[in-house]
């Protein structure tokens, strides 16, 4: 397979990487190792860690950080940006629709079964329109590149996409370690993100809110793998980081317990899944949520970001219909392509996939984090046969995609610099406006030849640059 190399066009270095390459070339060997150690020390000291469950070992593991950034030209980025915003608008329109009149289902463009039998479809919020009609306020769209102009959306994350703290910290650390690079390259800043996020949250405050809205971040607690990110964002936005036990419902509002007594909360950016939000409405055994929260939400006393039920739009089965949503709701042609996807509940697709398993990537519809998937070309015969049995048992639980020729980006490895596969997750914010900062999280598969970039699967991260003209 041929892989697009982000840095080279044939023998030549691509323009956006020109300065970077000369930087690398003049870098003494031990300098790199020294800086790598320095970076790790910085991460460790700041406490940026990522808890990986079920692996034993260090519960506070660092995500490997690669010092070689990934670079976008201004024009490349603007195209992506338009595509991402378009997709975000369509996804929110879809959510508004399926919790309302469901025109798209009536029009026969999306099978009713996929919507109404979807685990993430939340019947209890049908007819509840959140402020400004926004259901998903922070959308992380995973993109891969296979050629100069070929970007594909791999996945939409409409619930609580994580990783934005790495985008910000990677930049911070790069600037601290290599100021010269930032003087020599004109790199667009990303550090306005927390400010944008706060504005987005404030812009969707409920109508009942009179004064400046009080926003909070709701975390499952410090044992959660993304706890660092939760506290980091709360810190940068200057809002309280609360746990369920800090909140309570009284009458038509939600309050937090403070040293000066109860304080009303208007907007909750929750980093907690739907089933844990309210034990009276969802799982009665959950201690993480707030009893009565959903009643307040439904009566317009509080905004929950993302709205309960937003997950129905980021399902891997629904994913195949996003281009359709763009056409249906916006009357536009999609700017970003989907990856070709076979849905195994269709007999023809099923037949094709079962015959070509060794060449395909198969994913569980509700899986995430690189779990529950089969990468055909990287698997043994036995693994493939085992997966085949799983698919046979429940075909509608799976989708399949071709093995994509993910682009590679030069990456520091043991032996020096080598191409490694990357993807990209930009974070799109939806409130009264739709915005994103020029950048995102680039994840890199550090193992040679690996196409899996998830941090839970040994992937690393690198800084993502967008150059100004």
């Amino acid at each position: 397979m041929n892989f697009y190399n982000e840095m080279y066009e044939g023998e030549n270095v691509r323009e956006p990487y020109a300065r970077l390459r000369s930087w690398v070339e003049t870098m003494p060997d031990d300098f790199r190792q020294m800086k790598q150690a320095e970076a790790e020390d910085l991460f460790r000291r700041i406490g940026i860690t990522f808890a990986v469950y079920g692996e034993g070992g260090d519960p506070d593991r660092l995500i490997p950080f690669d010092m070689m950034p990934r670079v976008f030209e201004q024009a490349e980025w603007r195209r992506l940006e338009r595509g991402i915003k378009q997709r975000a608008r369509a996804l929110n329109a879809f959510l508004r629709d399926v919790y309302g009149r469901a025109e798209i289902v009536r029009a026969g463009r999306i099978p009713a079964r996929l919507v109404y039998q979807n685990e993430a479809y939340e019947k209890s919020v049908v007819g509840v329109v959140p402020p400004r009609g926004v259901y998903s306020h922070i959308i992380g769209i995973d993109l891969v590149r296979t050629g100069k102009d070929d970007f594909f959306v791999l996945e939409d994350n409409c619930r609580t996409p994580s990783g934005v703290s790495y985008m910000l910290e990677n930049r911070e650390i790069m600037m601290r370690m290599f100021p010269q690079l930032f003087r020599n390259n004109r790199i667009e800043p990303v550090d306005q993100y927390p400010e944008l996020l706060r504005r987005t949250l404030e812009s969707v405050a409920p109508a009942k809110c009179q004064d400046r809205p009080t926003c909070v971040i709701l975390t499952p607690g410090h044992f959660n793998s993304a706890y660092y990110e939760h506290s980091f964002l709360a810190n940068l936005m200057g809002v309280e980081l609360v746990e369920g036990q800090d909140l309570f419902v009284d009458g038509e509002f939600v309050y937090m317990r403070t040293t000066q007594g109860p304080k009303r909360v208007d907007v909750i950016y929750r980093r907690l899944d739907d089933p844990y939000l309210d034990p009276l409405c969802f799982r009665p055994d959950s201690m993480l949520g707030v009893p009565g929260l959903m009643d307040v939400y439904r009566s317009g006393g509080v905004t929950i970001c993302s709205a309960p039920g937003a997950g129905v739009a980021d399902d891997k089965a629904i994913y195949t219909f996003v281009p359709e949503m763009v056409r249906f709701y916006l009357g536009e042609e999609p700017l970003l392509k989907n990856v070709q996807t076979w849905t195994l509940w269709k007999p023809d697709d099923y037949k094709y996939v079962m015959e070509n398993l060794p060449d395909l990537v198969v994913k569980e519809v509700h899986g995430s984090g690189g779990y529950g998937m089969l990468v055909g070309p990287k698997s043994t015969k036995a693994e493939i046969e085992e997966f085949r049995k799983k698919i046979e048992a429940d075909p509608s639980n799976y989708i399949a995609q071709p093995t994509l020729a993910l682009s590679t980006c030069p990456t520091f490895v043991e032996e020096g610099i080598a191409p490694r596969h990357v993807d990209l997750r930009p974070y799109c914010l939806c409130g009264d406006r739709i915005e994103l900062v020029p950048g995102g999280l680039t994840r890199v598969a550090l193992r040679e030849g690996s196409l899996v970039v998830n941090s839970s699967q040994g992937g690393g991260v690198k800084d993502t640059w967008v150059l100004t003209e």
Partner: protein
Amino acid sequence: MLSRTASNLFWMGRHLERAETAARLLDVGQRITLMPNTDEGYQSEWASLLQASGTSDAFAAKYGAVTQEKIEEFLFFDRDNPSSVVSCLQQAREGGRIVRTALTGQVWDALNVAYQDLRKIEKTPRDKIDMAELTDFTTRHASTVRGAINATQLRNDGWHFMNLGYCLERADATARLLDVKYFVLLPRIEFVGSGLDTYQWQVILRALSAHRAFHWAYGGDVTAGRVADFLILNGESPRSLITSLYEAVWHLEGLARRYGDKVPTTARDKAREVLERLQNQEIDTIFDDGLHEFLTWFITDIGKVASLVHQDYLQGGV
């Protein structure tokens, strides 16, 4: 401020102070072993130090007879001992992690570095570590954290809660150490005023890093009356009951001023009352009425102040 945040800050202060107390005990233990002594005396002094940390039963249950290695393990490394240095630092760091939004980068950094270094020490074979290193480690890091707090934290309610934790814990630790001296150390009442007595008072002073300070303040001989006066009523002594309480009241006044009359001030009122009683005390009367009785009263009342802090601020007014 979130009640839970305040609570974590309060406990962070308490745990940091408690870690230092454990390290001090170790330091004193180290000194004892360097002194010529009978086996029996050596044993009983170790036992009294365990008593001071309120953990002698837990120790006996897990380790049996006292040896230096076991004490070191117990007071420094043992995660089952909630008052060990490792336990306290870990809890302080965990508390800090939970309320990172309320800490400056420098405070978190100091706390986190302490914890990372601690984990390195834990992984070092025990025979490669000497005890002085352990106490140095603890006091050095504790000072760095406290320094970072003093230099960088906003003087807001969070700062008051953190320091309140520090001073209430300190008041409690000093009182308990004194109490232990009075009851446990001396084999028989005839020993009062003897060489052994004096030596033990010195040990207490050392445990509180107050040996030098005592001589600056009083000069001359170490006597029970002077040491007690220094550790109870001397407003210049940094760990005395009166200083700790004075600071506690100061922080509680700060909170009351910030929050105004909508928030109850029962903790402050109680702390004021205890302080006032201390201010009207003479050391001779304390001895006449019984040091142990006095300390029991004090420890109980400090406990009451702490639970009123909880009631006033840490339940969210619900």
